[in-house]
């Protein structure tokens, strides 16, 4: 995607330098070959081919790395203050026992973990949940939904807080910065391509280049815009290209990024759970908190895993969810659900398991409940006393010879089929990518050629 842009920039750059000092003209050489000038072959030698190809690919790679760095810097600017402004969170009220208790729990856990005391903030929304926001383990804030504080007892608040502080202490915020910015690089491409056509896209880019000038809460707003299907990321863009790019990034997200990052964050969550038990020496608090949270309706709007593992991508989701809940309670309009899907896209791009917009309103969708059950199992191993759940009755197993003869080969065949399908999908993805790069290159050539010849003519070479 980025290669054509890099090509354009490179060629025009060479042309501009050409004014001052003569530069080679690989673009002109290439174009002449395409136009049938056999006197001057496309590539004089294989060395030149390798050279030009690596410049093309390398410049694409460098641009991708550069935008990654840009996004990382941008996310670092979106620290705790930005999140608090975006969430419209407030400091705990003086004299409010429940909120003071929460602030105390946070301070206590920070002492136990040997961290600097983090900021504490409360969101007045329907969220029975909490999250950490920030850029590093030395600079973060713990934010809780007021209903969570009302529903949990002191031990449970302590357990939930311990999980968050432990996650921050384990460096999850730094990790989140890396993974989220990496997965946002692909979202940046349509913005860059759309910048000439759309004012909002230009504004987004401008904000990203100069994060220090952005207003409080702006970083999170930009992050939301990146995932908004009606936002500048796609709306301004020629429809076919936009759809193609969306399709591509969806395939990459579903097939590659999401499973891998999902597994990664699951491990980090388990680590934070274990660390929380080590800090509080009390597995029952966190287990009780998880049980209460999974039974609360508001959790259905995003997985508690996402909230508790404290990732920038999910912060966006959470902020939106909160507003969405408010809005949904007033009026549920279609436009709103579409916007919500955009949030789900950003969040899933960062590898977090979230309920899709369709799951809304359900009490703890199945995926969420599974994750929670897994976490509770770990906590039980660490000594939590869980109430005996009714559970599923285990079916008696009968190993019939028929099973061995029919079922296993059938299963094997099915697995083989799936593998083949995946391989086919991969080939298709590569094919589509090649086509896209070609299309992009052709478009670039069409745009660049006139400028190129004008500049060369002006410089008289």
């Amino acid at each position, binding site marked *: 995607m980025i290669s054509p842009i890099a090509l354009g920039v490179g060629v025009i750059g060479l042309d501009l330098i050409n004014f001052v000092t003569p530069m080679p003209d690989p673009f002109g050489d290439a174009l002449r070959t395409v136009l049938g000038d056999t006197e001057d072959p496309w590539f004089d030698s294989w060395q030149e081919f390798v050279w030009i190809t690596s410049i093309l690919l390398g410049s694409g790679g460098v641009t991708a790395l550069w935008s990654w760095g840009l996004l990382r810097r941008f996310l670092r600017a979106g620290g705790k203050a930005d999140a608090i402004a975006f969430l419209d969170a407030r400091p705990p009220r003086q004299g409010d*026992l429940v909120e*003071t208790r929460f602030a*105390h729990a946070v301070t206590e856990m920070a002492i*136990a973990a040997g961290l600097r005391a983090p900021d504490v903030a409360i969101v007045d929304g329907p969220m029975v949940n909490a999250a950490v926001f920030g850029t590093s383990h030395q600079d973060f804030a713990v934010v809780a939904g007021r209903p969570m504080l009302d529903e949990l007892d002191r031990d449970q608040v302590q357990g939930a807080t311990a999980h968050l502080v432990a996650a921050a202490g384990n460096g999850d915020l730094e990790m989140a910065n890396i993974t989220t910015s990496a997965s946002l690089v692909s979202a940046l491409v349509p913005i860059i391509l759309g910048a000439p056509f759309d004012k909002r896209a230009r504004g987004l880019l401008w904000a990203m280049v100069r994060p220090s000038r952005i207003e409080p809460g702006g970083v999170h707003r930009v992050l939301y815009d990146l995932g908004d299907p009606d936002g500048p990321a796609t709306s301004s863009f020629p429809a076919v290209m936009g759809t193609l790019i969306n399709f591509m990034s969806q395939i990459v997200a579903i097939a590659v990024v999401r499973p891998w990052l999902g597994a990664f964050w699951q491990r980090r969550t388990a680590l934070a759970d274990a660390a929380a038990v080590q*800090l509080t020496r009390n597995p029952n608090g966190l287990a009780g908190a998880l049980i209460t949270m999974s039974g609360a309706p508001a959790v259905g709007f995003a997985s508690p895993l996402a909230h508790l593992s404290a990732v920038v991508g999910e912060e966006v989701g959470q902020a939106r969810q909160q507003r969405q809940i408010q809005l949904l309670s007033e009026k549920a309009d279609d436009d709103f659900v579409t916007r919500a899907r955009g949030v789900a896209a950003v969040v899933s791009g960062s590898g977090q398991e979230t309920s899709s917009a369709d799951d809304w309103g359900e009490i703890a969708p199945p995926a969420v409940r599974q994750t929670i059950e897994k976490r509770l*199992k770990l906590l039980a191993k660490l000594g*939590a006393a*869980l109430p005996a759940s009714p559970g599923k009755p285990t079916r008696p197993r009968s190993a019939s010879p028929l099973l061995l003869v029919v079922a296993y080969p059938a299963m094997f065949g099915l697995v083989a089929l799936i593998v083949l399908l995946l391989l086919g999908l991969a080939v298709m993805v590569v094919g589509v990518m090649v086509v896209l790069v070609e299309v992009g290159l052709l478009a670039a050539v069409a745009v660049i050629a006139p400028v190129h010849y004008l500049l060369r003519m002006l410089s008289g070479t």
Partner: protein
Amino acid sequence: METVRWIIVAAVVVAMLLVLLAIVTYNRLTRRRNEVRNAWSQIDVQLHRRHELIPNLVATVRGYAGHERAAVAAVVRARERALSSATDVPSRAAAENQLTSALRSLFAVVEAYPDLKATQNFASLQEEVASTENRIAFARQHYNDATMEYNTARDSLPAILVADALGFGRADHLLLDDPAAQEAPAIDFSDDMSRGDRPQLP
């Protein structure tokens, strides 16, 4: 000649590696020791916080339960002793423990005064004191964790070879000095844990 030169080069390389290793070890141990010291000072900070809380608490309790003079006076006396105690660890620990038990008996006495318990001021004071007790406990826990990490790092190879020469002594754990808490917790090693089943509620 050639061999001698190679031997000299090898010796220099090995010496440089050793020096590098010593530097890395020194830095690692220093970092851990500083963490231990920081954890120690954190305990001090929390103890100080508790001393600051007590006058407020005493005033509130006096207002409602004026004739519980003994319990209140015990707290006041224990605080004064803790403030004026010597700076060495054992005598300070003794004074602070006395304060802890005095506070506990004060809160036990207050149970008999529903009016007092119902006031907002007292409830928040109680939360403050409870949180401070927690903080002291967690600060000690962190101190012990940091001490364990430091001692493990110090006693592991290769650090143990140079630790004494570089002046890294062992750090001491803070032991429990509350007899009630010293009772060993009952741990059930029956096999339902190892089977991965859910442990039963006690």
